[in-house]
Each structure stands twice: as C-alpha cells, then as structure tokens.
C-alpha cells in the first residue's frame, strides 16, 4: 500500500519536496495557506545572483508538481497535529482529517515587519519602502515615489531586523546583502540618472557569484557603499527623507537627503511555523526557527520521529540551498518510510 506524506507549506521547499516524493511513488498532500503556491517567490521579480526571472524557477516547480497526482489543498491551514502510534492525524481549518505516515514541515519564513524598526518610519513616511515593495515596482515596470515621480537619490538600508538585538534577532538573514546589491543594480539599470547608496554593517557576500555581483555594482553601476547603520529617518517639508548615519570608515556622522529609502527586511520564523511548532511539540532554536536534530548531518530531522523539515523554516537560506535542503528531506523521509521506523 502506498505511503502518504503530508507536506505543510507550498513555497519553494514544499513544492520541491512534493514533486520529488510523488516522483518516487509516494502519495502526497500539499497544504498551502494561500490561494496559490509559490510563497515568497511570487513576490520577487528577479533573483540573485544572475538576475533570472523568478517565474522561471516557478515554472520549474510547477513542472515538478503538476500532473503527478499531488493532492493540493490551498487556502488550508493545519489546526490540529497529533501523532497516533504509526501515523499522524492532521485536522485542517475546514475540519478535514489528513492521515499521514510522515509529515514534512516546509512553512518557510516571514519577512521581518519593517514597521517594528520605528526609527525608519515604514508605514509612516511616504517613500520608505521594503525590498519586497521594490520588487513589486520592478514587476510593474516603474520605480516611482508616491507622487509618481522617479526618485533621484535612493538609500538602501541593510540588516533591517537582522543582527539586531533590539529587534530580538541576533542572526544574519544572509540574503539581504546580496538582495541589496541586486536591487541597487536594477535601480541603476532602470534609472541611469539616479544615485544609489547602500548602508551596511558588513557586506556578507558568501554565496557563489555574490562577490562578483558586488564588484559589478561598484565598478559598472557606481553604487556607493557606506559602512554605517542608519540611526533615524524623518520627512522634510518638501517630502524628502532626511537620514542620519555614521560613516564608520570616514569616522564621522553623516546627514543625507534622499527621495526613497529601501529597507532590506530580514527573515524570521513564520507565524505558521510557530503555530505548527506549538501544536506538534516541535523544538525551536534560540533564533525561533525549527531546531534540527543535528546541524551537520540531521538538518532535516526533527525531535519527533516521522516529522521532517525542509527549507527556510529551519534557517535563512537562498533558493539553491532551499531546493537542496528539500531534496535531502525527501531522502530522509524515504529512508524513514522504508525502514518503517514509526
């Protein structure tokens, strides 16, 4: 008899897991809280480091999951999660029970709510936006201020909600630096007359081709990188943004008038993930993401037998890493189902 696995979360990791499992002949139910799958990928226009369209990755994931008999449950959340000896019982928001031999949690991440960094005025000052808002502008083909005019001076603040004790997040979200570099280049491509300033603590260019992109941003696109954390933003009478920052390389404070401020929002454990952790008795770490059984050779394994993790519900990671992590989760599940360790 075919085994049944429930995958919670229909983002990159969930789709990859679902596709790979069904390819291996496992019956899969994919639970997604939104009305369509894809998660954060739907909000992004182009991806680092090669600036390919996110739709290309989405096409791949759709190809993985379509016509494979995966039972897709959209607009669905899990409201109850119990282990009954040899199987799991999950009750959906519509009262439907899903019986599973194993569960893969792929609940992803939430973007840090930038309004929590009150000093930057997101949600208050008109032209303070987030990296996600900027992607929306890229998708719509126009970077503009609220009055419809194109910005001339744009500031990008790194580490918004990451490496920030005040925000309760000590960890690095890992992707914001390279996202800032990518977005800075894209702004300069679309608005050649504009000036772009990135305010960073450290440039963490740890991924493949990140450093090259950083160099390109400086040499080809003239993006200015200023090492210093912006302390506050405010609005002037002519609707510009005045920021204060310490340029720690020059060793002096700096005030700058900008037209637009883009906040590189970090990644946090998703609200959906927190709910699953509470219901399922799953361990979380100091960073509030799911805690893997072992950081080196058990990053997909939870503290509950038969429950596995895939993707950014365990830590910030890029799409390449997420897909790799999802595939390794599939390996763990297949071993588990084969060995019958329940």
């Amino acid at each position: 008899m075919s085994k049944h696995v429930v995958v919670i979360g229909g983002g990159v990791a969930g789709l990859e897991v679902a596709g790979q499992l069904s390819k291996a002949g496992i019956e899969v139910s994919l639970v997604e809280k939104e009305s369509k799958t894809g998660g954060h990928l739907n909000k992004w226009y182009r991806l680092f480091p090669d600036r390919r369209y996110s739709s290309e990755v989405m096409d791949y994931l759709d190809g993985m999951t379509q016509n494979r008999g995966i039972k897709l449950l959209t607009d669905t959340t899990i409201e109850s999660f119990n282990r009954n000896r040899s199987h799991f019982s999950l009750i959906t928001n519509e009262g439907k029970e899903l019986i599973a031999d194993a569960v893969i949690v792929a609940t992803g991440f939430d973007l840090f709510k930038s309004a929590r960094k009150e000093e930057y005025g997101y949600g208050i000052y008109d032209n303070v936006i987030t990296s996600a808002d900027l992607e929306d502008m890229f998708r719509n083909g126009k970077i503009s201020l609220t009055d419809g005019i194109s910005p001339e001076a744009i500031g990008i603040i790194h580490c918004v909600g990451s490496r920030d004790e005040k925000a309760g997040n000590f960890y690095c979200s890992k992707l914001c630096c390279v996202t800032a570099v990518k977005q800075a280049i894209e702004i300069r491509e679309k608005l050649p007359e504009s000036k772009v300033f990135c305010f960073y603590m450290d440039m963490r260019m740890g991924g493949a081709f990140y450093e090259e992109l950083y160099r390109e941003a400086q040499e080809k696109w003239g993006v200015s990188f200023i090492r210093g954390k912006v302390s506050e933003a405010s609005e002037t009478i002519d609707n510009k943004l005045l920021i204060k920052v310490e340029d720690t390389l020059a060793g002096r404070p700096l005030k700058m008038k900008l037209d637009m401020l883009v906040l590189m929002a970090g990644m946090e454990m998703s609200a959906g993930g927190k709910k699953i952790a509470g219901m399922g008795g799953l361990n979380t770490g100091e960073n509030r993401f799911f805690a893997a059984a072992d950081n080196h050779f058990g990053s997909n394994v939870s503290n509950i037998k038969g429950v596995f993790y895939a993707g950014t519900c365990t830590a910030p990671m890029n799409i390449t890493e997420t897909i790799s992590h999802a595939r390794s989760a599939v390996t763990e599940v297949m071993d588990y189902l084969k060995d019958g360790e329940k």
Partner: protein
Amino acid sequence: MRIEGKKAIWNEYQKEIADDNYFYVRSCVRQNFFPGSETAFLKIMRSELNKDVYEHPCHTSCTGIGYHSDIVPVETTMTVVARQFSIMTEAGYENLLPSCITSFGLYTEILDTWHHFPEIEKKVRRQLKKATGREFEKPKNLAHASDVIYKFRKEIAAKAKYKLINKNTGEPLKVVDHIGCHYSKMFPSKGVGGAEYPYVLAGMIEEWGGEIIDYPERRHCCGFGFRQYLVQANRGYSVACSKEKFESMKPFKPDMIITNCPGCPMFLDRWQYVINEMEGKRYGQNGEGIPIFTYEEVAGLVLGYDPWDLGLQMHQTNCEPVLDKIGIDYCPEDKYNLEIKRSYSEKTNLINV
C-alpha cells in the same frame, strides 16, 4: 506622512496611569525656570479634576542632575530615591507622580534595575535602613505629570475656555512638541506613544484643537543635556543643539512649542534670545521668536487662567503672539506689575501636611 502608521504605534505604547491619589514630587529647577507651572498643575488636578495630589515638604532632589553629570554615584542616587519612596509609603500613597522628566526617567531606571538585579535593591534597602531607619514599598504606579494631564486631556477639553485655534483664520495652531530625552528614550514602553513618535503631548494638542508638526530634528536634544550645559566649555554645543532644532522646524512655520521637561523649555526659550543676540536670527513669524510653553501652562491657558498668573512673563521669548492668535483675554499692562498679588481665586493648599 501617513497618520494611520503613527496611530498604530501609539496604540502599541499605552501605559497604565493611576486615576487618583498621587504622591507628587517636585522638580529641583522648574520653580526657578517656569515658576507657575507646578502651581498650575496642582490647581488643575485639585480644583478642576478633583484629584487627591499629596506633597511632602521632606522630599528632596532625586539627584538626577548629579547622577547624569557623573557627580553622584549610582548607589547614592538609589538610596536617595529609596528615601523618597519611604516618605511616600509613610504618607500612605502608592502612585508616584514626578514633575521632572529626569526624575521620572531615573525612577524608571532604578525600578527596572531592581527588577533585574534584586540583590541591588536588597543592598539599597539595607543602606537606607542603616542611614535613616526607614523602610519603603516601591510605587505601584509611576507616571510623569504630563502622563496624567494626557490621561485627563478630554476632561480638560470639556472645561476649556479657549482652543488652540487661530481666531482670525479658524486654522489649528501649528505646534511643535518637544519631549524630554529621559521620558521614553531609555524605556520606550514607559512613555505614552513610545520613543520614536511620543504621543503624550501630541495627544493633548490634538484634543485641545492644535495641529502637531513633525519636523526632521524632532528627536534631537534641546541642548540642555546636563554635561553640555554644566561644563562651561560645552555651552557652545548646547546652543548649537537648540539652533539645529530651530533651523529644522522653521520651514513648518510653528506657532508655538510645547514641552514636558524642566530643561527643554528653559533652553529653547533662552537660547532663542542668545541666537538672536549672536546672529540676529529669529525663528517665529513676523520677526518674532517661537513661544515656548510647558504643558501645564498650555493646559492653564486652555482653561482660561490668566497668563501672568501662569508665570508667562518669565519667558524670555514673548508669549503674546500665541495669546493674540488664540484670542486670550489678558491685560498687557499687568505683565510685570508686581503690585498685583499673583494667586488663584480659590484657596489651594499646596503643601498638604
């Protein structure tokens, strides 16, 4: 600017403010700087709002100025504060109501320190007992006097004789609110509206008919910052801080400034005079300065108190432009008339022991 964004933050930072039965501790310096303010506060609380506000003549400075100037060691400060608490306890009160922002900040800081380091509280209790034989309970509620006026802003509005509206244009007066640094910058959750967008004074102004101005240097220090002023060599920095603020607010054409700290109105008031002497610059309209008020003075004006009973003649930057815009009935000739005995019509028992 999206006001709904600010409202969301204001909703997050609401604090518990006691409703009645306050133990009031005065500021060391306010009675010299703006002598009518504390008196006006007591009159409003007792006569207008019928609240029990108790004062004790034996309370002392909290040592805040000395503490922040690195003159008084923190343990000494804590023991002095413990003595204030013991006087409050003896008087049978639980709701501490400081007049001074620095005192409020210091009490908040000490209570928080004791919460996290109970062994320090124990030590301070021992020291106080040994030195004075006193014991104490910690306050159940700690609110700054501006918190309390904020709490009762609607009641004051209901009794108001005037609104913060330009009588000629019908437009709200444009008001700059300046919050003392020690109000919520150290502990945002202890201030109404938090640290970035404090609402304590903005709420009063909104309720009394005015319009708050959000200008870029809103968060900047007024220039008092004890070490800036107490060290004579730093006073240039002090006046530069004030100037930074005036330059930033000027394009918004403010009619007045409201403050909730002892030092801020003093420095924003006096330094306007100094800047004018040094550079011939004035920041208000029609070649005048921008009048500065304490929140008690503004509450008193709204309630129809005589400006000279409120002590507005002590301001170096003339307050008359605002009085005239609102249409307040006052006698210009009485401004410096020392023959008039300055007192409120009804008897106020200021020290009730």
